[in-house]
């Protein structure tokens, strides 16, 4: 039901305690005027947010949901917001399946010092929701919620790769290396939160291989440059598709 007899809409915000909640505080301290629709729920980290929370909110009558965390790389817990980014991005794609307008959901990054940015984010998002108007209300969201729950469970493990398997993976590569010209993978970039491509030719190279949420780039893009060579490649599930594509093309 519309809040304040139509003056407001129902907007739920999930803010991480360390950056965005602080940013919202900073905006307050600076007396940065904002629309009053938003209600903030404080969570320790954007990585704590279960996509189900958002779907529940949207199916139970929220007109919009805004998630905000620390800027990538500034996560108080090192990597939480990278997991969040993965899940929320997929969630965005998934919402229409549930008949929810994906424009009703947005995620962003605001640091504790960015009071002005927070003000702007809130204002823009609130305007957007007001343009969309109140969300259609379901008399019984439960069945949809069940579907969502099942679907989203598969999201949960997103990006939780395989650290344990890394050792075996390295062994496997080392074993195969002699018969290959090169194996493509990832290695740590200029800091622990960044990866750069790794081209493994010697066992020493293989030891540089890393695996985790920071393996963002798709190594398959390098395959064409190795035309005619015998190369191995380490991929994420999503990357494997591009490999398949490449195989089909040539």
């Amino acid at each position: 039901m519309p809040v304040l007899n139509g003056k407001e809409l129902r907007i739920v915000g999930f803010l991480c305690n360390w950056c965005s909640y602080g940013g919202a505080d900073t905006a307050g301290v600076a007396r940065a005027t904002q629309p009053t629709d938003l209600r903030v729920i404080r969570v320790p980290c954007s990585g704590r947010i279960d996509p189900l929370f958002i779907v529940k909110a949207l199916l139970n009558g929220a007109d919009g949901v805004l998630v905000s965390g620390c800027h990538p790389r500034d996560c108080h817990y090192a990597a939480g917001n990278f997991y969040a980014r993965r899940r929320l991005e997929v969630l965005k794609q998934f919402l229409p399946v549930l008949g929810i307008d994906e424009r009703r959901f947005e995620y962003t990054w605001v640091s504790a010092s960015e009071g002005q940015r927070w003000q702007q984010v809130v204002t823009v998002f609130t305007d957007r929701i007001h343009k969309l108007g109140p969300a259609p209300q379901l008399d019984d969201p439960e069945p949809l919620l069940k579907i969502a729950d099942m679907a989203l469970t598969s999201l949960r493990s997103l990006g939780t790769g395989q650290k344990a398997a890394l050792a075996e993976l390295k062994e496997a590569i080392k074993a195969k290396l002699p018969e290959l010209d090169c194996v493509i993978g990832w290695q740590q970039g200029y800091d622990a939160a960044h990866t750069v491509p790794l081209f493994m030719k010697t066992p020493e190279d293989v030891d540089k291989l890393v695996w985790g949420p920071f393996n963002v780039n798709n190594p398959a893009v390098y395959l064409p440059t190795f035309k005619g060579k015998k190369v191995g490649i380490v991929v994420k599930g999503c990357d494997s598709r591009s490999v398949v594509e490449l195989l089909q093309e040539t």
Partner: protein
Amino acid sequence: MRIGVFICHCGSNIAGTVDCAKVAAIARTYPDVVYADDPMYTCAEPGQAAIEAAIHEHKLDGVVVASCSPRMHEPTFRRTVERAGLNRYMLEMANIREHVSWIGKDMEANTNKAAELVQLAVEKLRNNKPLMAKSFDVNKRVLVIGGGVAGIQAALDCADGGVPVVLVEREATIGGKMAKLDKTFPTVDCSACILGPKMVDVAQHSNITLYAYSEVEDISGYVGNFTVKIRKRSTYVDWSLCTGCGACTEKCPAKKTPDAFNELTGTTTAITIAFPQAIPKKAVINPQFCRQLLKGKCGVCAKVCPTGAIKYDMEDEIITEEVGSIVAATGYDLMDWTVYKEYGGGTYPDVITSLQYERLLSASGPTGGHVKRPSDGREPKNIVFVQCVGSRDKSVGRPYCSGFCCMYTAKQAILTKDHIPDSKSFVFYMDIRAPGKMYDEFTRRAMEEYGTEYIRGRVSQIYPDANGQMTVMGVDTLLGQPVEIKADLVVLAVGVEASKGSPQLAEKLRISYDSYGFFMESHVKLKPVETNTAGVYLAGVCQGVKDIPASVAQGSAAAAKVLALFSKDKLESDPQIAQVDIRRCVNCGKCIRCCPFGAIKEVEIRGEGKAQVIETVCQGCGLCTSTCPQGAIQLSHATDNQILAEVNALCQC
């Protein structure tokens, strides 16, 4: 459940745009709320007393305070409810100041929003459970990284406080940058004379273990129980035998070795002792220049060494130390000023850095304290000092002020006059920043008593005029005129940046750093020594540019923090951590993989593999909770149920 709600007026801060009484009235209608009030200042002594009273009087077992941000006063009110006998986690706060009263003027909307935020808190509280902190032992040893003046101070204070100290220094000697300085401002007393004794204390203190020429390789563990791997780089000299007699350095034939300690203003030998007062006073071989190590023939030092300390086959050594706390004091380096091609980019011998000039002034320097031009050894008569080279300069990515250049430039101008009475010094400055005890007076002295010419403006170009002089093209913005000076020597006050490898160390320490590599304190104003990783503290320039007094002060401050931490035999761990419901856990291992802190391990319980949280390591991010497909691992105080309760509260109302 019996909940009490307190709607704070915060004077007019909240009451100005929120009808607190009305909010309290609405709150009384919420489930389980048996008491609601709207005091003037909840955080003030009477306000807190009122809460305690209400808890007793109304037998409350949960409290909601609607006031300012929990980031501000949550600890305060937790203590309040604790005093009244409640568990501190039976408190919830609604932020109706920063998030309501301060960001909108519409009384109706604000009041309504405040009421809903209160309901949010009530619903959360209804799902709260008392949490008990666990306690664990503290290893009362401290690691100090960096043996500059800040690190030395921190180490000595800790050691005097009875704490065993492990001091790791990258260079062959402690003393850091201060050891390279000739004199110090504003008292112009000899740097070596005031630092020397402290260095000796470090060497002699029974509580201090010094690893010079060593670097921190790896850090694991958590506050109270860190495990540190230290790489002792090979010196090719067995320090247990080396007496620092210096016989080797006299005989070594590789005399063209660049002298790093003298900022490359002079040369030294391949085997060398940094400087006379070096601590430890031990020889080190520079493998890039040692003929024995390069060509395999020479071995002079081995022949002349009376104790047979030379070991050409020496290799790096990894040492493991257990400590309970860490102080980072890694200091700074000068930025690479060769990007200034208009100043010659390092190609003109008579354009030098301020630190190089310190060595030229210093009696222990390459010129024995006689100022001579690097190019021809002539005594310079006209010296130009250029400030802000690599400071306050966006175009080279250094927008910040390096803080102490104004002061040491004034000092160097004064010393120049002392060394060469018939010399003339010019200083190009943008602003004189001397906000310290006796600082401004000092810069005034440089101008008034020592006749240093201060010129307000930057320098556009410096070039040799082919007559053995440098032409300095500057400006006097006060005069509104370009100015040109023929100089024999130009000294650039090169800006500072975080010392090489700071970001990498920060990753090891799991602390954050800014875009220039300076380590981040956990609060700019109120926690300038702490970091976001418990048990890790900062001292000196590694946290941000500061001069010697400030570095020393922060060194002592860090030591105080360490001693305070070690004053307890046991530490309490934050109970807001993940917990595994072993009945639900199917041991898929996803939580173990996603945890950024390696805080979850697999254990066997009744023959079954189960996940288990290492309570002291878990930081409470809840990543595992949103990852577990079974909902088996839950973050205390932010469980799925608690958050969903908040969501429902918002949507149903």
